[in-house]
């Protein structure tokens, strides 16, 4: 309901931290239905979905019986495994199986939705009836009978997760744990979270579409606790792809662990961060969350269609500096934000959102496409069959620039060098955003110097993109979890090293 902060974070957080987002309505009585963490998904093992075509056709017919111009059925099954290693012990192993189907009806600007855990004729028919509630006075159409369509695949698998023995999963965790603890004697604890899932999807709609696929997902998180004199730092490094188990050959668990441990130790020497406006350099990779929040969310079609988004009416206009080009691309092979088609069945695409500072496109789902009279960009995504699709980002990044990242640093006299960000949030209407730095350094005379403690960056999205004055040639990506309207989506954020002139930094030390 209404405005919720849109946020992005690098790992799934515990419940009490989720509660720190203001404005959302949490139905305390049904946490299982309303707030599913990543570890809460599932699917029957080895049961390839086979939903009867005529059942899908009947459901769509039923959904449009009272009226409405569009209906779809989304059938999902998921099998998940998550294993936690902490204090060198395998503390828990969780296995999840879940399946269900959601039926949606669109009538004008109205959406009706209902879902069922059981994929039976009776339950689907009941869901269709509930979903059709909104279409009482809408116009009527005759749905097109569905036929199977093929979609290009952007997810390649060499070693399928289905064939991986649990032993292999434990093995990558042990390797990471060992390297983290061996890195330095001040590393007192490592936490290794392993998660994988296989999600099967079948989508059918009143336009005659029928598509289905099966997507593997891996998420590997290493957190390390560094303990120094009167100080502690918990750091983390993550690896996530839609891919087979070969992910761990391409990036080893040791590399991930080493990255986390390095940060834990480096930050033990951190001093209080300065407060006030200053120039900020953000290192390549996951730092792209800044534009994910500050620019990405405000470019999602739903708030634009409601004419309340910060970028409403700015299509074709200059909104950013000349060096700023931003892209959302769901087709980058095996990335965490990549799928073959979105959760409405639309083929994934490479969408240039801002080119050389000029606004080109909004990201849409089927509903906002209709409202805005624009193309379908393949951004209609949902957390599970329990949620309606909404416009979401996939892999979102600032395009590669021309500058050498070392030159960018050398030409910055004074400021803050942000090596990694935890996450942040944005108000999509006003465009006010904030970010929390996890690893940051002072810049003095063009050099990285003292590490500084977790500072906040805050400002307005329009200022950020107009004040970006240097873009490096070192584009990289990082995996994350994006939250919007109570739904979580797997995304990547990326960028080359960039410099932004004048961001408000929240440290506890007055500037000297």
């Amino acid at each position, binding site marked *: 309901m209404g405005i919720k902060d849109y946020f992005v974070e690098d790992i799934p957080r515990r419940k009490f931290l989720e509660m720190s987002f203001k404005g959302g309505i949490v139905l305390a*009585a049904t946490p299982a239905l309303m707030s599913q963490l990543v570890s809460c998904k599932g699917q029957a093992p080895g049961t390839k979905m086979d939903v009867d075509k005529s059942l899908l056709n009947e459901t769509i017919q039923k959904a449009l019986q009272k009226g409405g111009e569009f209906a779809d059925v989304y059938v999902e099954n998921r099998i998940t495994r998550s294993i936690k290693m902490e204090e060198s012990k395998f503390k828990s192993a969780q296995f999840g199986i879940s399946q269900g189907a959601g039926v949606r009806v669109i009538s004008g600007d109205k959406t009706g939705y209902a879902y069922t855990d059981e994929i039976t004729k009776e339950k689907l028919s009941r869901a269709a009836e509930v979903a059709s509630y909104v279409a009482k006075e809408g116009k009527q159409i005759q749905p097109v009978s569905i036929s199977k369509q093929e979609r290009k695949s952007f997810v390649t698998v060499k070693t399928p997760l289905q064939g991986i023995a649990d032993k292999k999963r434990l093995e990558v965790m042990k390797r990471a744990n060992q390297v983290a603890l061996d890195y330095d004697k001040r590393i007192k604890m490592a936490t290794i979270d392993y998660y994988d899932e296989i999600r099967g999807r079948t989508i059918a709609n009143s336009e005659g579409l029928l598509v289905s696929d099966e997507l593997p997902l891996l998420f590997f998180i290493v957190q390390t606790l560094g303990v120094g004199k009167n100080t502690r730092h918990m750091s983390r490094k993550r690896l996530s792809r839609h891919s087979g188990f070969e992910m761990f050959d391409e990036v080893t668990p040791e590399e991930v662990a080493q990255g986390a441990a390095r940060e834990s130790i480096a930050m033990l020497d951190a001093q209080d961060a300065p407060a006030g406006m200053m120039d900020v350099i953000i290192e390549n990779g996951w730092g792209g969350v800044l534009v994910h929040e500050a620019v990405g969310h405000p470019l999602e079609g739903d708030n634009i269609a409601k004419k309340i988004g910060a970028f409403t009416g700015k299509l074709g206009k200059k909104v950013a500096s000349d060096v700023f080009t931003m892209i959302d691309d769901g087709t980058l092979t095996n990335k965490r934000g990549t799928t073959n088609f979105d959760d409405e069945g639309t083929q994934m695409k490479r969408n240039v959102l801002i080119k050389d500072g000029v606004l080109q496109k909004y990201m849409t789902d089927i509903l906002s496409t209709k409202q805005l009279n624009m193309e379908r960009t393949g951004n209609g995504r949902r957390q599970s069959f329990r949620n309606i699709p909404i416009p979401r980002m996939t892999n979102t990044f600032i395009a590669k620039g021309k500058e050498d990242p070392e030159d960018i640093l050398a030409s910055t006299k004074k400021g803050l060098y942000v090596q990694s960000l935890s996450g942040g949030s944005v108000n999509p209407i006003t465009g006010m955003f904030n970010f929390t730095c996890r690893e940051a350094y002072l810049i003095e005379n063009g050099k990285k110097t003292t590490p500084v403690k977790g500072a906040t960056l805050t400002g307005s999205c329009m200022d950020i993109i107009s004040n970006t004055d240097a873009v490096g040639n070192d584009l990289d990506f990082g995996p994350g979890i994006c939250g919007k309207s109570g739904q979580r989506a797997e995304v990547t954020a990326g960028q080359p090293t960039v410099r932004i002139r004048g961001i408000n930094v929240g440290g506890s030390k007055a500037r000297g």
Partner: protein
Amino acid sequence: MDYKTLSQQLVKKCLDKGADAAEVYIQSGRHLSIDVRNGDIETVEESSSGGAGFRVFKKGRMAFSSCNDFSDKSLENAVKSAVQFARNTTSDKHNVLPQQKGKSEVEKIYDPGIQKVPMEKKIELAKKVEKLAMKDSRITKSAGSGYGEGEAEVFLANSHGLSKSYKSSSCSFGVSVVAEKGDQKSSGSEYCSRRFYEDLKDPQGIAEKAAQNAYGMLDPQMVKTQKAAVIFDPDVARAILGGILGAVNGERVLQGASFLQDKMGKKIASDLVTLIDDGLRPRGMASQPFDGEGVPTLKRTIMEKGVLKGFMYNTIVAHRAGVESTGNASRGGFRGVPGIGPHNFYMDTGEYTPEEIIEATPSGLLLKGVTGYGINPVNGHFSGGASGFWIENGKIAFPVKGLTIAGTAHQMLHAIDMVGNDLDLNRSFTSPTFRIKSMQIGGE
């Protein structure tokens, strides 16, 4: 379906398949949500669903599985998966299940009347709150209003013979609006959640507060980077409480990952700070008769007049610490193992009205919005984005946006020098208005 009997049968099934001890957690529920914008329905969602979670122990090794399908085949498959998965974990003598029978008395957490209120009346409530919020001429657009409700029933059984259940409900409504002036946009929202439909507040008050939150922030000014007093509105209480909650988590304490790990019985905040965790409050949004693994809940003092009095434990972590569970096993539904979490967690009331606190402040920030992660539970650092009103000579002078505030938990908790009398216990995670004497504020 008789889930109580089923949960007991499934515990037995786990033991038959090779578990030494087992717990079955079944949840079933339904929810409805209605979104309205510009006087018309935007979305209606309604569904009922449920599922079962299996926690099994084999030679001290713990594993878990869940499924949302109650067919015999699926349940059997889930039980087998859990028992098999237990081969992978490390044996630990602390991996035990609770034995506490009985439930705590908690009144009025289920309203059978919510279902009986007609759909049209609920839609009307959402439409009305939007209409009222749009009345103010400074409000230019609606970002939507809505109504939501949910009911759930939990059944828990374990191999120590525990078999318990309870029902709960909640309902809520709220609205978000936008105020525009020239190029400026400002949004504001407000909502109300209750266990009982009849307890929902009057839409007039909700609408007014949403509108005020939006137009009140138009024409913000910047202030200089400085140290000044910061008054925390109850809306931003969680910015401070969240980090404390993370730091009193018994497991984090044992791991040496809490800034409060060696502070038990010590003075860590000013005399004015008392923190309570209450699982028993009648009609409380986070009240329940037993926690996520069946331990009866309590009302506990976590901090008394600035002295740290208690950490929070579930059964496994309590066993490891050599103490009793505090009834703080938290469970996000049937799909995961219990963690550690609060019930109704709040800072106790003080003696001043919020107006008196403002009047007593020569210069400072009345904090209405804060962004970021709050206090870092590991090391106590705090840094966040801030918005609200600037106070000059004891009066609200102008709105401020895009500021930052920062400090450490140690400095901030000791510097709380005024606490308000405006505690609203209908919220589950809250505080009265309170003032921190001095904090670093980042601006121009």
